[in-house]
């Protein structure tokens, strides 16, 4: 694996399967009464968030704490960044304080790449979402969820998602989740279809390893998993679609549409959901919807990524962990 995790496209199939398998090990820890490993004791990880995010930040924070790392949360609002400090100076400040890894969320596409490749800092950089570019840990937790549901928790170990048909629906143009998922799912052998109104598909999409469709109804019967992407209501003001209602009618997932999916097919959403827009409450609350599982799996995936980037070669989970808590 590379030193940093910037893009899902950086992962080889072996890398990705290793992360998914390691995450399964991490998930077992969550089933124990004491959910903590000593793996990253004495290491300091900074969560550097230049863009508001509650879900992703607390997911990383939970993962870091379960690995016994020391956690620094740095939110740009109210910090020196809002007073005009540059990304470079912020990064070098953290480096001087001796952080061992930086988890970064940034509104500008490419900011994590720049942080990792400009010589500003030495620590590994983990991209927690940059602009409309990439969100690799989201793609990993999505793939993890799909592998569990579509292949099996134990049966899936060591395997990818070969031949599984995955459909992503919604605002592809502005979605880092879509870009990351297309890259990772393709690497894992899945067949990916993107469904969106043509206004929300980027010019230049033709080189992506996936199919494009403008019709959700045609694709649904051939989908093993359907992932609904969040659509911001403000998009209609920029003429991406006429009204919220028209969007819902053409691209929203309701119970009638869900019934056209194969029996074992699942519904996914990276959250936060806009109920009534891209997904109805009936679908969101159904057994086929994996939203809550995805959140739980996110912690396991982030533990696996942090362990593999920082922990090195020692086994993540020993059969009788000699932690302080078990003494």
């Amino acid at each position, binding site marked *: 694996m590379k030193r940093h995790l910037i893009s899902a496209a950086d992962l080889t199939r072996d890398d990705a399967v290793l992360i998914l398998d390691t995450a399964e090990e991490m998930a077992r820890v969550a089933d124990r009464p004491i959910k903590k490993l000593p793996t990253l004791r004495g290491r300091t990880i900074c969560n550097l968030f230049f863009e508001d995010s509650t879900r992703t930040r607390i997911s990383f924070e939970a993962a870091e704490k379960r690995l016994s790392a020391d956690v620094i949360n740095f939110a740009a609002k109210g910090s020196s960044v809002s007073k005009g400090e*540059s*990304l*470079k100076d912020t990064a070098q400040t953290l480096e001087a304080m001796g952080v061992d890894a930086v988890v970064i969320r*940034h*509104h*500008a*596409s*490419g*900011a994590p*790449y*720049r942080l990792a*490749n*400009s010589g500003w800092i030495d620590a590994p950089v983990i991209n927690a979402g*940059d*602009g*409309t*570019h*990439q969100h690799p840990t989201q793609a990993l937790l999505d793939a993890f969820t799909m592998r569990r549901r579509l292949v099996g928790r134990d049966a899936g170990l060591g395997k990818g998602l070969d031949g599984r048909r995955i459909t992503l629906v919604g605002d592809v143009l502005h979605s*880092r989740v879509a*870009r990351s998922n297309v890259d990772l799912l393709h690497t894992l052998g899945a067949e990916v279809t993107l469904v969106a109104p043509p206004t929300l598909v*980027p*010019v*230049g*999409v*033709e*080189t*992506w390893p996936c199919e494009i469709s403008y019709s959700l109804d045609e694709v649904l019967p051939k989908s093993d998993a359907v992932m609904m992407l969040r659509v911001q209501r403000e998009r209609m003001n920029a003429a991406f679609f006429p009204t919220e209602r028209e969007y819902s009618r053409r691209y929203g997932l309701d119970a009638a549409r869900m019934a056209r999916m194969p029996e074992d097919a699942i519904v996914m959403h990276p959250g936060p959901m806009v109920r009534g827009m891209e997904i109805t409450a009936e679908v969101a609350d159904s057994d086929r919807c994996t939203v809550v599982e995805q959140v739980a799996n996110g912690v396991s995936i982030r533990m696996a990524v942090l362990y593999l980037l920082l922990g090195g070669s020692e086994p993540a989970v020993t059969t009788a962990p000699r932690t302080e808590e078990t003494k």
Partner: protein
Amino acid sequence: MSKILIRGAKVLGGETQDVLIDGETIAEVGQDLSAEGATVVEAAGQILLPGLVDLHTHLREPGREDSETVLTGTRAAASGGYTAVFAMANTFPVADTAGVVEQVWRLGKESGYCDVQPIGAVTVGLEGKKLSELGAMHESAARVTVFSDDGKCVDDAVIMRRALEYVKAFGGVVAQHAQEPRLTEGAQMNEGIVSAELGLGGWPAVAEESIIARDVLLAEHVGSRVHICHLSTAGSVEIVRWAKSRGIDVTAEVTPHHLLLTDELVRSYNPVYKVNPPLRTERDVMALREALADGTIDIVATDHAPHPHEDKDCEWAAAAMGMVGLETALSVVQETMVETGLLDWAGVAERMSAAPARIGGLSGHGRPVSAGEPANLTLVDTSYRGPVDPAHFASRSRNTPYEGRELPGRVTHTFLRGRATVVDGKLA
């Protein structure tokens, strides 16, 4: 008066000749001229060109002296072989009054490294709403004939029409920065395969092409001439070619970076490649080279755009747009046009000296290398090849996309009206 004998240079890449400068003018061109009383410049194997003229330079003064001043910018120009530059109007304050253009003109006179011809803003404050006092700028000491809101497009069709018409009264020309503003809101790079992957806001080719199409039709309708700044797409080439075939009075420029670099470089997210208009695709680059060779594109202009280090040492979206270009332009043209066989040195002289001087109405520059002409000359060692080292730039800024890249050609001497501004590759 001092005499200089340039001995054994290939004039415009052709015949090997001696050129005798006496005072401010070329006294004689011929074989085996007498060196008596003259300082001799041995130029065997080197190419002698008329001093280069840049129709599109940002000197930044007044207002952004942290990026460049008229003095540092003209030093950079001389280093690159230029004897005249046109200074763009997007300064602080904007060059939209006789007072500001005269200030820039006077600073140019004082610098002594090359002639500075100010460009006036088409509209007050570059806001595209109200015409600046174009006539007053023309009648000022600066004698402005080129008007441009460069950095911004004159997007209002009526304002553009009026500007094209109005400057006819004194032989002026409007140089358009062709960028439809609504199509480029939030634009960060060329819209295409690379922008789709990188998740950076797209700057579509059609935003340039639609404005060029409109403006050549406007120019035809009102019988004016129009100049297109930094043309960057294959589609723009086709429109200009069509317009010229119809007899429309349009001229166009291309920058060195659009002749060499593509949007693939943006994959590094290094803002040194961030520029407006953006780097395009390989197909566009090839079309631009061909158009410069066949005359569809008239000139090379640098769009020299200095920025301080901190404006490039950051994430892509926060970075300023633009690249310095004066000190590398001739090398890039040699690499992309001469060494590819698309253009000979006489063609380079036409596109980097004679034609820009003609379009800008600048007398005394872009003249033939012959007796009686002003001694504005550039001597180039075209056999040189080496990496670009920004540490040696005369410009105050270092935002070059060519750092470390091997490029051919080195300006050894520049003469401004008989006075050497560059000697043996160093500023005099």
